């Protein structure tokens, strides 16, 4: 092994190849910063160039890009509240509130350092595990994979927020959204409303962009002003580094969780980040700051999402079973150079594997350093009046969503999920369980189905040692949450009883959710046996809980409380009304895109937004629009991003 590591170092530390890696890192950083775009875009952009390179240089370039995407995506999540990629949503939840409190520098410093360490731990883990990982991966059968996803779902239990019932309902809603599309258990497409667009299910990036991105942006716009009111760039950096040192074990735990989630291709990369986040919340004594800007909620997931990419390379290289699309594309490139992943790779190409390891480690160091240096400048974005930033961010999110299938349905889904996300946010529903539910719905259902079918006799899988261990882990947080809920009960009831119910947005959302679950129940009754199991269970439970929620709201025992930042006392109504107007504005934008295509629609809409909302004078507004559209064209050319055309096809637009 040491020999191969040395040989790999000689192959890797050649100026031309280092240069290629640096190009890859830069591309990865830029793509990571763009909201909603991650590893797939980064690797796709570079592939046409790597054909001209030798194998080592090509690998250095691609791995370099993939290694740092999750380093730079943090900045968008923290500063703007639009997830830089689906795996950085926890940073929206914890980092963005910190940015609003003027602590952007602290959040970013902690995030970069954790990413860096997570990446390095991932590289070391990859080095050590490659020779021995095959039996380890094979030890995880379908029952273990099912139990692990169940464990991931149970982590959501620690993110339920003040009212556990609402959290559970949100989680169920996520599972239900995840059930849209093909059933893993039977040849049936569910909840597609006859739309071919929905036949493959909803896209994770669009769900994350809608439920978190659009919702956050509307929230900031409605509140008015800039993202951060206080300027505090000075010593935040030092504090962020201190935070990481203080929570060093958290960094390690986050990295290991991420690494492991990557190694098991069934679980998926995004789930690893969420598991790390759920884990840190579950194991913290004081949970009061989570969701309002707790540095621990940034450190663990950021470490995890860089380590995931290293872990993902294990099944890719050893079994030729990639856990994510970018890893699959890198595998395609490997094939072109005659390197065939599989059981023989350890004997035949160990040096190549260690070149990947070296690249991964070096890219993480370089990427984090570049982001450290660039961030003070980028952090100033948080102090610009947000109305001037919003149109560009919204445009970027629409473009990112449209890359998923290049169907107008992408944009419509983004809008619908954005409106729903804001409604949930404004009426105090936790959204983290929703995303966890969505991410894990498919593996949960798939491996449950496979387990019961591959092991017709339940004893044969229920009594497997690993299943028993995970079961114990699984039960613990539930017991813990129940005990804590019992303890707090007296206090909450005393407070809640004082409030009188009045009909409003809160009730509307609760009743709406009830209607969704009830509809899903009726629909799921008509599904084939295998494919109705999960959606039916989820929908029935959701219907019961929603009914209880509505009744309790009417009795005045559960009051919608908007998230912390939403409003100074008493002003909630006004802010929500303003937010609804902004949502209407975005709806108009999407309709314009449908008719005119994004070029013309953006020309009209961005100018109008600048004139009416940002109150710019018109020459400036026009200049702003022109620059925005030129930027979009540049992106389209450089990154190969597709622009939505309109139904009215105007020549050249």
């Amino acid at each position, binding site marked *: 092994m040491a020999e191969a590591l040395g040989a790999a170092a000689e192959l890797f530390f050649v100026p031309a190849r280092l240069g290629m890696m640096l190009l890859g890192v830069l591309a990865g950083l830029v793509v990571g910063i763009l909201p909603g775009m991650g590893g*797939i875009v980064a690797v796709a952009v570079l592939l046409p160039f790597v054909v001209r390179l030798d194998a080592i240089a090509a690998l250095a370039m691609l791995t370099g890009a993939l290694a740092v995407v999750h380093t730079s995506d943090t900045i968008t999540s923290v500063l703007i509240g639009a997830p830089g990629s689906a795996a950085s949503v926890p940073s929206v939840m914890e980092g963005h509130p910190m940015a609003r409190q003027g602590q952007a520098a602290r959040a970013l410093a902690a995030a970069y350092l954790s990413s860096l360490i997570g990446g390095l731990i991932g590289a070391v883990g990859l080095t050590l595990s490659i020779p021995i990982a095959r039996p380890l991966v094979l030890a995880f*059968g379908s029952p273990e994979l099912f139990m692990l996803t169940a464990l991931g779902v149970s982590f959501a239990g620690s993110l339920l927020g003040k009212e556990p019932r609402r959290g559970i309902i949100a989680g169920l809603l996520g599972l239900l959204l995840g059930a849209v599309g093909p059933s893993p258990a039977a040849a049936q497409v569910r909840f597609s409303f006859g739309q071919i667009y929905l*036949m493959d299910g909803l896209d994770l990036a669009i769900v994350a962009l809608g439920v978190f991105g659009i919702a956050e942006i509307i929230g900031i716009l409605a509140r008015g002003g800039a993202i951060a009111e206080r300027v505090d760039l000075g010593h935040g950096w030092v504090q962020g580094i201190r935070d990481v040192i203080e929570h060093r074990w958290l960094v390690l735990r986050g990295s290991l969780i991420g690494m492991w989630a990557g190694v098991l291709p069934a679980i998926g990369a995004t789930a690893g980040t969420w598991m790390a986040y759920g884990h840190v919340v579950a194991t913290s004594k004081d949970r009061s700051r989570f969701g309002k800007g707790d540095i621990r909620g940034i450190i663990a997931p950021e470490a995890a999402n860089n380590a995931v990419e290293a872990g993902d390379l294990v099944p890719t290289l050893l079994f030729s079973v990639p856990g*994510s699309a970018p890893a699959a*594309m890198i595998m395609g490139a490997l094939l*072109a150079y*005659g390197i065939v992943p599989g059981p023989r790779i350890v004997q035949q190409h160990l040096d190549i594997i260690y070149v990947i390891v070296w690249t991964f480690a070096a890219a993480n160091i370089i990427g984090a350093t570049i982001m450290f240096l660039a961030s003070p400048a980028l952090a100033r974005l948080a102090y610009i009046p947000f109305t001037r930033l919003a149109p560009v961010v919204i445009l970027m999110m629409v473009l990112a969503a449209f890359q998923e299938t290049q*169907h107008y349905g992408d944009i419509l889904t983004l809008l619908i999920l954005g409106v729903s996300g804001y409604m949930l946010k404004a009426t105090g529903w936790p959204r983290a369980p929703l995303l966890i539910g969505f991410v894990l719905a498919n593996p949960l259902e*798939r491996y449950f189905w496979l387990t019961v079918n591959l092991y017709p006799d339940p004893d044969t899988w229920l009594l497997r040692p690993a299943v028993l261990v995970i079961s114990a882990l699984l039960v613990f947080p539930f017991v813990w949450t129940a005990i804590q809920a019992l303890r707090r009960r007296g206090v909450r009831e005393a407070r809640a009883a004082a409030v009188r119910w009045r009909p409003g947005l809160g009730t509307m959302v609760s009743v709406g959710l009830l209607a969704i679950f009830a509809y899903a129940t009726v629909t799921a009754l008509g599904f084939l046996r295998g494919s109705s199991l999960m959606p039916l269970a989820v929908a029935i439970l959701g219907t019961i809980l929603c009914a209880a929620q509505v009744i309790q709201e009417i009795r005045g025992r559960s009051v919608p409380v908007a998230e912390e930042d939403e409003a100074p006392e008493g002003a909630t109504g006004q802010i929500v009304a303003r937010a609804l107007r902004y949502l209407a504005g975005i709806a108009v934008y999407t309709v314009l895109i449908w008719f005119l295509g994004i070029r013309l629609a953006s020309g009209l809409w961005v100018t109008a937004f600048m004139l009416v909302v940002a109150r710019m004078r018109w020459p400036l507004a026009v200049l702003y629009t022109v620059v925005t559209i030129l930027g979009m064209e540049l992106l389209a050319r450089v990154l190969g991003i597709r622009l939505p055309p309109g139904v009215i096809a105007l020549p050249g637009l």
Partner: protein
Amino acid sequence: MRRAALALVVVLIVAAGLAPARAQAPYYAGKTIEIVVPFGAGGGTDIEARFLAPFYEKHIAGNPRVVVINRPGGGSILGANFYTANAKPDGLQILATSGSTVIPFILGVPQVQYDFKKWKLVKVNGVGAVAYVSPGTGIRRPEDILKPAQPLVYGGIGAANLDLAMVLAFELLGMNVRSVFGFEGRGPARLAFERGETNIDYQTTPAYLSQVAPLVQERKAVPLFTFGFTNEKGLLVRDPAAPNLPTIYEFYQQVHKKKPDGQLRWKALQALLNPAFTFQKALWVPQGTPPEVLNALWDAVDKMNADPEFKEKSKNVLEGYTLFRGDKMEATVIKSLTVTLDVQKFIKDLLRTKYNVDI
């Protein structure tokens, strides 16, 4: 004034003389070709298209830019429908298809709005596949498959998907197999085989050679048969990448001591073999695309096959199988996509009665 008019005439004549010369510049010079992949990034069809793109840039006369765009959805139906509705016969948008695009077409799935017969074939290439069992099944000789030592369990994605060929092979051979569907791909299904959760599986021949052949050496897997390969005459021959293994046709004879010809079960499997394997990966343009454009695309295939760099790099990506010019194979490919009604009915009935799939 007169001089000016004369000058103008001269200029016009010269311009007229130059015009044909300009028209002789290759059609594709300065243009961009989009390869529309109706699957997500990172899938087999996407990886192949991205691999071919730079070679098309190099070998199509005029050296156009070639970009790959993904339009996934509906298991490739959405992208193929989109292509039907939008592509113009100008050779600037090319559709990539795979077996998953063809099978719903063959079975007459109602969402399908595309028709292969309205397209021209640009290139086609395929891949073989190998079926194998675990030694625990006690299967040593072909006839053992009818009385295995333990119940056979197969892991697949979905009966109406690419597993259809395997399902029809079980039917043809008269094997008693419990099929468990729900895996996310053939890779994870192979992992389940290695874990001992299933004991019969198939992989494309390249995946078999790199991932399963080592298991065969360690006596952890026993190969059964290949799905064969259709040659240019349209005949099923041994898989060029695994010439030592019998085809399903030969294997049937070894098991049952007679030929399968004439049986509806065999016709049904035969109908699936080409779209699922031999002609799995194809590129298409709409009918009405001008001949000069088609020729440029077809010639590029020959130039690629002659390019040593392509030969070297395609060994693993195209998995050792030949890239065919569209015009040479079009008739055979189109013929293989036409399924007789009795075969269609047989497959649909089988899926409905045995696998609870209603199309």
